């Protein structure tokens, strides 16, 4: 009995080992031949791709749910709605404060809040049945296509039309980020974009003007070289390869600055995207350039920043081998100044921090919208839809955006918020807070200024981040990007086949 059992165990272990030795391929590979066609070569055309893989996203507006914004007036008694958001700690406190103020300001609508991370909010939303969904939900920019595909929301474009809301003060780039195929799906709420952080003290020591940050990639390299050669700092630039920063999101930003699409079908905004384009000449040039800066010692790679979110910024405060510049989201400016304000770092304090636009190819301006937007959920209940819209217009109102921007460090989503206190006074006292907003204003109004919408954008970023890390380690740029693009295209085909 016992030996028999022992033998079966040995057999199981042997099976495990045999299985371990055979097979291979990626966990994301498809077994399905139809999807493999679309995932093939990045340079090949998509003529062989079945039409069903790229259904049009051009939706006739009248097939989408209506937004009866006048239903609130007809409702008797307060309409109770729920808002799911992804803002934590200090940001969450500010959402709570604004919501309390809204609830106190009128008696038609009563909002209750549910807070989680972006990922938790998205997972909960996707998994919830129609009855359990909130009336309003905040989701980040990489969820746009997935949210459209749930077909569970009222496009805010319909609400704008029904209510006659004047959208002219809103940043057009921010509005466009949440629009595809002519439909305004969601309303931008919290906006950020990457900016250059640099140590003015190192600039001075290297003989550079501390008030003139590098505008182009070429200047970024030249400045770095001068900083390193003069001994002002061990490195010029600190690079990192997190999927929501240097390894993924910034590449999308650089494509915007270069005036190029990151994915086909105009970044997936005229039609569903079928492939990424980052393995083209622009992508190869860009990453070859960054690899070159690492090779000649003007830049340093601090690894995957998604762990702390601050490794690259801390490199500016490093006492042994500091870097003078790095790129980070504008939303980190508040915390950075706060931490440096404690005076615990001898080589940089809050006053030494310079902020400039993110340097790009040939110094061309441009930035994609990061952050999150508000989606009105289709509850089928007119009064609740109208109430959600009413609350949304409050959160995106000029005064609220002015307060929100100061409390959080996000960029206001509308120009009239700039003229209101407390934002006006804050920017006047510290112009560094205006850089991210100005970067958006300077962004040309062209189709490439609206970022990619891809169903599996989060995974696509993860794949690219891995490739960027390999390239930073010295891997061949063209081959690595081609491999990554193939894997990303497989993920896109896999997604499209299901939607």
């Amino acid at each position, binding site marked *: 009995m016992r030996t028999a*059992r*022992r033998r079966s*165990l040995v057999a*199981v*272990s042997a099976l*495990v080992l045999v*299985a*371990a030795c*055979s*097979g*291979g*391929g*990626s*966990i*994301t590979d498809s*077994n399905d031949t139809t999807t493999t066609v679309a995932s093939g070569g990045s340079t090949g055309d998509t003529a062989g791709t079945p039409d069903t893989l790229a259904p049009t996203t051009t939706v006739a507006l009248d097939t989408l749910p209506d937004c009866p914004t006048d239903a609130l007036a007809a409702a008797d008694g307060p309409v109770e709605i729920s808002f799911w958001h992804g803002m934590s700690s200090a940001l969450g406190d500010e959402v709570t404060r604004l919501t309390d103020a809204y609830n106190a300001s009128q008696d038609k609508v009563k909002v209750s809040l549910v807070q989680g991370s972006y990922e938790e909010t*998205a*997972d909960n939303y*996707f*998994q919830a049945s129609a009855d359990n969904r909130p009336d309003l939900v905040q989701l980040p920019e990489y969820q746009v296509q*997935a949210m459209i*595909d*749930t077909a569970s929301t009222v496009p805010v474009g319909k609400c704008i039309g029904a209510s006659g809301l004047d959208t002219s003060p809103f940043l057009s780039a921010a509005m466009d980020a949440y629009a595809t195929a002519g439909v305004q799906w969601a309303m931008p709420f919290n906006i950020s974009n990457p900016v250059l952080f640099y140590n003015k003290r190192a600039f001075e020591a290297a003989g550079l003007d501390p008030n003139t940050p590098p505008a182009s990639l070429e200047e970024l390299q030249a400045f770095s070289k001068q900083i390193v050669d003069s001994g002002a700092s061990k490195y010029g630039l600190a690079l990192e390869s997190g999927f929501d920063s240097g*390894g993924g999101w910034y590449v999308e930003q650089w494509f915007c600055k270069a005036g190029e699409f990151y994915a086909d079908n105009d970044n997936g905004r005229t039609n569903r995207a079928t492939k990424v384009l980052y393995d083209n000449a622009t992508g190869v040039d860009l990453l070859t350039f960054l690899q070159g800066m690492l090779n000649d010692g003007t830049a*340093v*790679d*601090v*690894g*995957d920043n*998604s*762990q*702390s979110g601050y*490794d690259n910024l*801390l*490199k500016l*405060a*490093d*006492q*042994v*081998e500091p870097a003078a510049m790095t790129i980070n989201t504008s939303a980190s400016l508040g915390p950075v100044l706060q931490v440096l304000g404690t005076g615990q*770092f001898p080589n940089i304090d809050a006053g030494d921090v310079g902020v400039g636009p993110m340097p790009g190819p040939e110094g061309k301006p441009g930035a994609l919208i990061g952050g999150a937007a508000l989606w009105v959920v289709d509850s089928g209940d007119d009064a609740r839809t109208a109430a959600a819209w009413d609350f949304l217009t409050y959160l995106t109102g000029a005064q609220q955006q002015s307060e929100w921007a100061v409390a959080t460090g996000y960029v206001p989503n509308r120009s009239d918020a700039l003229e209101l206190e407390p934002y006006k006074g804050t920017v006047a006292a510290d112009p560094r807070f205006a850089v991210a907003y100005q970067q958006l204003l300077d962004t040309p109004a062209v189709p490439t200024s609206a970022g990619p919408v891809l*169903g*599996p954008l*989060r*995974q696509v970023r*993860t*794949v690219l*981040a*891995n*490739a*960027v*890390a*390999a390239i930073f*380690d010295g*891997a061949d740029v063209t081959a690595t990007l081609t491999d990554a693009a193939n894997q990303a295209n497989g993920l896109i085909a*896999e*997604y499209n*086949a*299901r*939607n």
Partner: protein
Amino acid sequence: MNRRLRDVPWAIAMLLPSLALVAVWTVYPLMRAIQKGHFRCDVTGKKCTDQGWSRYVDVFQSDEFQHALGVSIKLMLLTVPTGLVLGVGLAVLADKHLRGIGIFRTIFSSTIATSVAVASLVWFVLLQPQIGVLADMFSDWFPVLKNPGLLNDAGTALLAVALSSIWANLGFTFIIVTAALQSVPRDLYESAFVDGAGSMRRFTNVTIPMIAPTLLFVGVVLTTRALQTYGEIALLTGGGPNPQKPTTTIPYLIYGRNSIISTDIGTKSAAAVLLFLLSLVLALVQFRGLEKRVHYGS
């Protein structure tokens, strides 16, 4: 006979609460995971395609799973023997009737009161390459601490995670082994002493056999913990550094936010079921293989 039959309803009634809990929190999720493992899903988790049982084979054979399996086994080999030896060593050291030994026992066992999150954060801050204490103090001798950092270097990241994990689990091993040492009858030591056995001999021929069941238990628990290591990875390395991903264990592949399958509930389920099978096989092997050599006393 009658008496037994009469007890059955009572037995069922008394077992019901725990059976219900096991059914709801263990059996049902396991069944759901096995069922979901057939599918590949998009980010919404609602749109899935059925790939059948062969999906388990595909997942098992994929480069990512094989890599994670290798990492998990490496981590197990790094943490279990070292943790066991250190735990037993400390327990033997503290198993003396000396003045103030209680202080040392408290210190040695203190990590059991430290959650994985706290332990990981302590190490994360210590090892932080730019401003961490260890990096600034020892970078002259160990440049890897500074550039790129122990957790950011593909060659040392797993070692650093193992270090944190061993440290965090030491308190558990220490307490269990200390309890076992105290239950060893003193007269065994005395007779061994009378027979002329030295302290080393007493340790190998009395202590070890007498605490062997405890060592087996601790070994199995540490092995299972090593295979389930997630918190340390999530907080210290995020499965990285990329692109080698030397710390992407199977649990991190399943749950990690940087994992390539983080948005695919189907593939995650398949990987989780495979991890369950792996732990099951390993635990069985340990029990069957070691049980015979373990002396449970009379």
